[in-house]
């Protein structure tokens, strides 16, 4: 790693044995991406070893405040020696995306000698929270697609403006790093809150793939609490119940119905105490 030394800050030194790299972004619908990374880091007792400095990628003209707390761009790599896993939780750069993603791949390729890359994102879906979440997948090499065939991933077909994860996947391909972008479904009305079922689905994929032996008990508890709140909402509100029933059998809702359910669910999940 010779080109971009000034944009990294290393805090620990490890000897890596071709760990896989899992990348999640700090902001994601349903809290999916950051929660999955936090969960994996916690359960695998990963240790931070490198950060990408924010200067040049973010305006740094002060701080944003979210939920009463000042935020700051963060791009931290953590490592689990036991599981040979590196994670990156990063804020999406607001400028110089190519330079930022190249820096990520410099750490992955030159420093960690990673051969496999995973990115995590939520994809909003007209599905009900009671339905199982699918994970849609985009691979940059056919050999990884073949290797992950056993995990019931759904092949994505799509064309349009690329997300940063797709750009990273493309740049990884150029460096001959196999990669897959995982797009886990999140019911659209859970976009603004945490969708624990999607988080669990994604964590379970990594658990199987890397034999992490993670206990999802905490997630199960959150799922149960959320389900209870939503069940109570359905019992109280016939319109919402009809909307969710429609989604459960694969029907779509119109814009007005979507707005109605988003408002009701957000209110129910933020205020309602668990019985």
């Amino acid at each position, binding site marked *: 790693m010779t080109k971009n030394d000034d944009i990294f800050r290393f805090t620990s030194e490890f000897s890596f044995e071709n760990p896989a790299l899992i990348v999640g972004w700090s902001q994601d619908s349903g809290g999916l991406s950051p929660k999955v990374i936090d969960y994996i880091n916690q359960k695998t007792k990963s240790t931070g070893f490198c950060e990408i400095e924010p200067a040049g990628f973010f305006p740094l003209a002060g701080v944003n405040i979210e939920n009463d707390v000042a935020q700051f761009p963060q791009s931290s790599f953590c490592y689990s020696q036991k599981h040979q896993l590196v994670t990156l939780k990063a804020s999406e750069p607001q400028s110089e995306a190519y330079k930022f993603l190249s820096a990520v791949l410099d750490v992955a390729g030159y420093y960690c000698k990673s051969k496999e890359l995973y990115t995590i994102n939520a994809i909003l879906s007209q599905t009900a929270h009671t339905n199982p979440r699918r994970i849609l997948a985009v691979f940059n090499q056919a050999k990884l697609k073949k290797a992950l065939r056993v995990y019931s991933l759904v092949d994505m077909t799509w064309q349009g403006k690329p997300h940063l994860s797709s750009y990273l996947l*493309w740049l990884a391909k150029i460096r001959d790093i196999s990669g897959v972008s995982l797009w886990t479904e999140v019911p659209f009305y859970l976009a603004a809150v945490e969708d624990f079922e999607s988080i669990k689905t994604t964590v379970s994929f990594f658990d199987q793939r890397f034999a992490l032996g993670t206990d999802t008990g905490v997630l199960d508890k959150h799922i149960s609490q959320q389900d209870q709140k939503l069940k109570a909402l359905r019992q109280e509100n016939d319109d919402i119940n009809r909307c969710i029933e429609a989604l459960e059998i694969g029907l779509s809702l119109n814009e007005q119905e979507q707005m109605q359910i988003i408002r009701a669910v957000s209110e129910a999940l933020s205020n309602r105490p668990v019985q």
Partner: protein
Amino acid sequence: MGVKLYKEPELENVVMFCGWPGIGNVGLVAIDTLRVALKAEEFGEIEPFEFFAPQNVVIRDGLLEQMVFPSSKFFYKRLKGKDLIFFIGQQQPAEGMVGYAQGHKAYKMAELVLDVAEQFHSRGMYTSGAAVSMIHHSAKPRVWAVPNKAHIISELKAYDNTVLMSEIEGRDGHGAITGLNGLLLGVAKKRAIEAACLMGEVPYYLQGAPWPYPKASRSVVEVLAKMLDIEVDMSQLDILAGRVDDSIEQFLQSLSSTEGLPAQARAEIEKLLHAKQADLGPITDAEKKEILDHIDELFKGEDRDEKRRHI
């Protein structure tokens, strides 16, 4: 990372022509018309990653097949006694909120284009763009010519329909060329390469229009064809110019009937709609600003609040 040449043709007595998008796409359309007419062959590109974000991704059956970036390509054509290199960019490398090229990336791209010019011992370079001018859309646009060395002035003046900055009323020989057109002229000067920018006139009230302005491109192509002593088929440009003229008339008609437009602005638009170039008369800066404010607002309206999902 930088310039990637697929082959290195043996070229002599090279002149380079550069075109990229800008106001009315005047330069891009002019240079590309010449490139297509001469059937120039692609031989290289500037790799996009450092300059542009990808615009499109193609994912099929779970495989990421294609990532599409704006292209910046080199073409060549051998002519009798004068070989040509064309550089056609699909986008200018802009930074921040500025719409045209400036800053480090723009300078680096200009350097890379000049590297190719030097590699093939180019003896001259022409860029092209738009000159926002107080002309009417029914008028034949002139070509403003700005060289980077004084001794080229006489050559440029010899071509029909070209004007120098000093010949334009109120300019007194001064002005500015924004974006890569200007930057390239400067970087070429730094490297002692003769260069000139040929700018086709675009009516000031159309500078924010989403359409090309092929009439101005045609004027530039006429000068370039004369310079190279070649015939260029302009029929496609003329067809496009006719269509754009119709669109302008329709647009001005609809604008003049817009409710709530200040009377002063409406009067000026009516004047544009019905007058020929010579009848326009003087327009004050305040009137010009008022018209531009309203026209630009209408042009921008289509793109506003565009929010698209991306994967």
